[in-house]
């Protein structure tokens, strides 16, 4: 069943067309790799799907609902999680607080939350703490749960971002170059973690990644973009042999 559907998506910046007429489908529990050379339009496509950029044309549907006009936070509450190419963590918060923010964001009414805080009832519930701790356990962050993120290294921060993105049980995870800045061992561990989270939580994953070994380890199929267009899609090995893909990566002979 199609969970996320993108149709005819186009986005330009001034005279530069970043994404043009892109169609993309993601089914429940499916993992799709979005690959292509730098400047292919992958992150722009992500930004449009997540509501950080407003597309010039095209539709985006989540579970049959048009989400094209919604703001980023509304899309997040509807079940889209995201990690970022450049880290977007909250330096002053601990790892556990990161997950609590994500968990609490969609739960309580605005004014109700403030009144609870003013009455001294703003502490997280035991159920919320249990949920957070189970995710921290699953991703191996239990030992640093109370450490401010500013004190952690890049690799750990990437895991924190991932844990934050999945704690509210999103239906779709947009992972934007999660291996960026990680060494080979960390990349392998991250790939295993992504795959296990996907299977365990039955979420769809859209993965933008330059490390093709990680893509191969995580995804069910691959979509290749070049110059803002989709140039190929299908199984990993089949697509990587396609002439259009080789031209995109290696240039025309």
């Amino acid at each position, binding site marked *: 069943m199609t969970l996320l559907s993108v149709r005819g998506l186009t986005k330009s910046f001034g005279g530069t067309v970043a994404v043009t007429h892109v169609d993309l489908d993601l089914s429940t529990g499916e993992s799709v790799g979005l690959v292509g050379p730098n400047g292919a339009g992958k992150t722009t496509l992500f930004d449009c799907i997540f509501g950080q950029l407003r597309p010039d044309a095209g539709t985006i549907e989540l579970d049959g609902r048009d989400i094209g006009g919604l703001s980023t936070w509304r899309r997040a509450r509807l079940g889209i999680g995201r990690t970022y190419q450049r880290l977007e963590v909250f330096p002053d918060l601990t790892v556990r607080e990161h997950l609590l923010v994500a968990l609490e964001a969609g739960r309580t009414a605005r004014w109700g939350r403030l009144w609870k805080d003013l009455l001294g009832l*703003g502490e997280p519930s035991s159920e919320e703490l249990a949920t957070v701790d189970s995710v921290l356990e699953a991703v191996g962050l239990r030992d640093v749960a109370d450490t401010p993120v500013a004190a952690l290294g890049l690799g750990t921060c990437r895991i924190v971002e991932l844990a934050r993105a999945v704690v509210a049980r999103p239906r779709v995870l947009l992972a934007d170059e999660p291996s960026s800045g990680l060494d080979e061992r960390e990349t392998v561990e991250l790939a295993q973690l992504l795959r296990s989270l996907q299977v365990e939580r039955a979420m769809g994953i859209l993965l933008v990644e330059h490390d093709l070994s990680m893509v191969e380890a995580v995804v069910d199929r691959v979509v290749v973009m070049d110059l803002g267009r989709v140039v190929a899609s299908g199984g990993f090995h089949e697509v990587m042999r396609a002439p259009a893909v080789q031209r995109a990566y290696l240039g025309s002979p």
Partner: protein
Amino acid sequence: MEQLLGFAVPGIPYGCAYAVFAVGLVLTYQTTGVFNFGYGAQAYASAFVFAWLVDDHAWPTWAAFVCAVAILGPVLGLVFDRFLFRRIPSANSTAKVVTGLSLLVGIPALLPVVFGNGNLVGVPSVVFNPGTVYFHLGADVPVNGTYLSAVLFTVAMLVVVVLLLRTTHLGLEMRAAAESSRLLELEGVDAPRVTATAWAVSGLMAGIAGVLLAPTEVTVQAQDYVTLMVAAIAAAACAALRSMPIAALFGVLIGVVSLTAQGYLPTSSFWYSAVLPAFPFIVLVGALLFVPGLRRLGQATDPLSSVDPPLPPPAARARGREIDRIVRTGFWVLLFAFVVSMLTWMPPAWETVLNQGMAYSVVFLSVTFLTGTAGQLSLAQATLAGIAAFTAGQLAVHLGLDFLAGAVLGALAASLVAGLLAVASLRLRGLGLALMTLAAALLFDVAVFPAQAVSGGTGGLALEPHWLPLGLLSANGHDYFLLAFLVLVACVGAVRLVQRGTTGRFLAAMRGSELGAAGVGVDLAWQRVLAFVLSGALAGLGGTLLAIQQTVIAPGEFNYQLSLAFVVIVVTTGVGTVEGAIQAGIGLVVLEQLLQYAPGRLQGLAFVVFALGALTYAAHPEGIVELEKRRWTERAERVLSRRHRTPAPAVTGRS
């Protein structure tokens, strides 16, 4: 036509003054990446020294010009670069704004301390004689030396800086350094030298502008330069801080349109008394709302900004259990001693001072909450305090409402205005938001607070004793202390509860990364409005407390300069903790009280001390008090750990 020219031509010197400053602001921003709020203060410093040398020491004009402009201007720029702005991490736009503000507040207060309160009247012109009419436009519109100086200098400055930036290799390097000095260094360019050159050029321009503008006013006063600077910000904003010719054009237009409208409008009309003085600020608001380039002004563009080290955690979070127990016990003992002292032996004069300190602390808590907790910068907190005070005062005058009940309604009014300001600024971030709040503060200063219906006119509203059934105005007795103490404790408690709760976590997330916070479902617009509303309520409560203590609510007590000073003072002590607000409030009034005993020229030193303290914000954004607390905590931890390692002496029992 003759009449139009007659009204418009006198606006040219003002317009050129705005233009010169606006070009200087754009130049500094384009070449250093800093929106330099201290630019007006730099210009004032050169004008002050120039006038001081000529008037008080009879130096020749050319020698004073060389000293005040050619030497002092670039030196000031180099000092700003070397000791302040270079130390600020490229991603920290708040630190850049605060550092500029501390210069704007500190330099005008420092100059009389260093050079004395000289009588700087009738400053000579460097180029043309101000009083001489050189020719006439049309039949009888005289063009004197002031007009000629303004026009010629504006054109010359514009041409020079545009050529420098657009046609020279140095200009290209300066623009690149403003984007990312680290990337420029990777290209093999000595980026610190380029940035230092940019600051020197900017300082020189500020010096020239200051000295050439000095003869247009009767005396050299800091107030003129600060006001002029604010109008220039509007012109620079219209050019999105990018195009110097457009900034100059808007500067001239603001000056000419203001003076022309002044000529045509009846002097008794609302438009003349309220709208016209606010015209530059209305232009600024319009630019901030409709010029797209200003929405994310001041946000980091440096791709390598993430290599900056993170802030250290607050001292309270870093200390061990034993130290924590000692600190907490010490806090309660001190608090008890303070309350007992205030109720028993404290001399009335000092009780009054400390009461005022508590009222300021409540206002400063609003800065702590908005900036330290939510990461938003407002330059209108004194205005919000004033709105609450005037609301409570007018409710007492017209409805006979008890002032304390009015204070609650006043705080609600301040919250409402703060909320509206937040809604109007939803698309703005960083510097853009700071400018919008500054424009709002200025609008209230010139168009709202002076109105008879709001403040009762220039004399202000005198609080009558029967408005306060508790007898709070009776010689600043203990009843005021108890009121201020209870309000402060309630406000501190509320802020701490919000900080520790879900809202606090959301605000901390927003402060850390807006993109990340929105990405997990935090409604940023709501959080920003909420932060402004709560901050407005705190400022309002503090404002009414101040009003009760001072017994008169005057418009000048809540002007925009105080708003700027409030931010500077709070970041000096530490904007991240509620203790910082209390230390700032008490510190300000105690320092001012102690300076009463100092010689006349040192009376204004309190702001200088805080401004100098705020300059440390560049290196220590956590605040100097917080920095010292962390250092002492570390020392104490070391002492304790040594003591724990020392083996206990063998017990030799005596028989």
